[in-house]
């Protein structure tokens, strides 16, 4: 995974809360078996609306999404993260993320930066007043900077470390393979199997 230390890019204000993963990418785009090329499905229903924020030239090339609470609720589809990344987003700033979405983001190097809703409102106001304005997100310092606004964001320490180092989860776990083998030897014999190995 590509590591993440700091990122500066155009901020995109999405003034909605409860943006579920069906809105981020509808099910019809989930039929593909590839891992790339999901950008066309991002916010598909809303992108038909010419007033939608990503259809406005100032925000079209945005890479830092600033959105209301409960972002990424619903379906576990990691396609939501792929769609955001494939479009060009590197950071999502929200006051509350759904658990599975937050986890999926961390695996893919998309930073889910949690700030207070007051800070989201400040950033929205800044981006409305400064269309195309840039936001800098510093993962080392855990700060978001936009114009005169500087605010702290929350990310769990383990995810932060993995993102800073660009570490692959499976590789990390494989270091402890003997622990897994030892654990397996202690499992009760009556635990079910799906078929004989």
């Amino acid at each position: 995974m590509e590591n993440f230390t700091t990122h500066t890019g155009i901020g995109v204000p999405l003034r909605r809360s409860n943006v579920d993963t069906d809105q981020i990418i509808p099910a019809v785009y989930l039929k593909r078996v590839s891992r790339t090329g999901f950008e066309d499905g991002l916010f598909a229903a809303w992108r038909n609306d010419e007033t939608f924020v990503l259809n406005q030239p100032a925000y079209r090339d945005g890479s830092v999404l600033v959105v209301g609470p409960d972002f990424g609720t619903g379906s576990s589809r990691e396609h939501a993260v792929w769609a955001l990344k494939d479009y060009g987003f590197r950071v999502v700033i929200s006051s509350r993320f759904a658990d599975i979405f937050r986890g999926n983001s961390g695996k893919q190097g998309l930073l889910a930066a949690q700030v207070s809703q007051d800070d989201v409102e400040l950033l929205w106001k800044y981006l409305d007043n400064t269309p195309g304005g840039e936001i800098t997100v510093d993962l080392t310092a855990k700060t978001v900077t936009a114009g005169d606004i500087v605010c702290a964001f929350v990310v769990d320490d383990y995810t932060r470390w993995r993102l800073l180092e660009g570490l692959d989860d499976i590789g990390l776990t494989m270091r402890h393979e003997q622990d897994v083998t030892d654990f397996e030897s202690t499992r009760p014999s009556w635990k079910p199997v799906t078929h004989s190995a």
Partner: protein
Amino acid sequence: MAGTLAEKVWGEHVVRHVDGEPDLLYIDLHLLHEVTSPQAFEGLRIAGRPVRRPDLTLATEDHNVPTTPGPITDPVSKIQVETLRDNCAEFGVRLYPMGDAEQGIVHVVGPQLGLTQPGMTVVCGDSHTSTHGAFGALAFGIGTSEVEHVLATQTLSLNPFRTMAINVTGELQPGVTAKDVILAVIAKIGTGGGQGYVLEYRGEAIEALSMEARMTVCNMSIEAGARAGMIAPDDTTFDYLKGRDHAPAGADWDAAVEHWRTLRSDDDAVFDAEVDIDASTLTPFVTWGTNPAQGSPLGDAVPDPEAMADENERANAAKALEYMGLTAGTPLREVAVDTVFVGSCTNGRIEDLRAVAEVIKGRQVADSVRMLVVPGSARVRLQAEAEGLDQVFTAAGAEWRLPGCSMCLGMNPDTLAPGERSASTSNRNFEGRQGKGGRTHLVSPLVAAATAVRGTLSSPADLELMEGA
């Protein structure tokens, strides 16, 4: 030290614990379907890794499958299903394909085979994996990267979840079901209320539920934002499991039950949060908005966003009503639907179909309504046909279909047209969930059946009034 059910099950699966790092948790059962697995298998292939425990892994085809006879006609869906078949063959994973006697929605198949048992950890690349928590298993949805991680290592690296007790006291009134309970819970705590938590449903109203009804409750835990939902195993659980294909037998059964009886929250266990619901006050519950927390008792009217105190909630509700084409103040009972969908991992089991048949029997689906009845699995379908339920549905004018996820998310041809309105026994009323521009009202099987007959959102009691008049 006293522990909750979730903490006990977690504790039994910790492979490695280091302060300041997530726990490495062993996974007892990994379920797969065609939508969230292809990129995970691709990752294994690129890294040259095998599936560590194919014998703890099971795949079914469910999201894309058509519910009318014949092959998949959508070429993209076909490729996805064929990719699953190829991957399962290559990596030695058992697959129940379309047409197989064991095929069905992944969360219906696991329990009916007896693969889902108390105290297990169960994961799937599907947020409704919480369904399996009805057995006292710790079961949760994961993303595709985690699917790959489990395939490769049979573990997940996770921080412990917090625990929330949902105490459902008292007794449900007749005609009020598990679906109404969970919709009321979600409306009470909100779509984000359960974030970071495992919910444990407790209290006499929960203890009185059948296993299938408990699955309905746990299924929708994710709609409250929770990672998982659980119910402590009891004799209802053991009676359901005994004799099933993959349940322990003989001395193993006795050893398992002895252990399973320890899987309950200790009397002095402390939950991180508690919510109380009085079951006796609940009535049939339906959603009016575009998230599962936007629901009201069927007897209410469409709410007025202007009357909502919270600014965010007000804006959300106004957007939702606009999308849903509803006017504040309209009695919910006057909302006419075009389609009724009975099925999904929430309400596609045999008891759900029996409940629908009971209401539909001897009645007719309204001329203005199309009704689809989609069994959750091939077994459910055969059982329903053995009981003659299919005859009841078709005689009433409903369509009796083949098993799959179907109109719950419309990845197969079963979708709503733009502007069409459904009463659906599924789990999500998000914008466009059942088809672009489609409008969804989440309901119980009883309300679905009555709505099909009356043509507007209704409970069975409304039918008796209508027919008595």
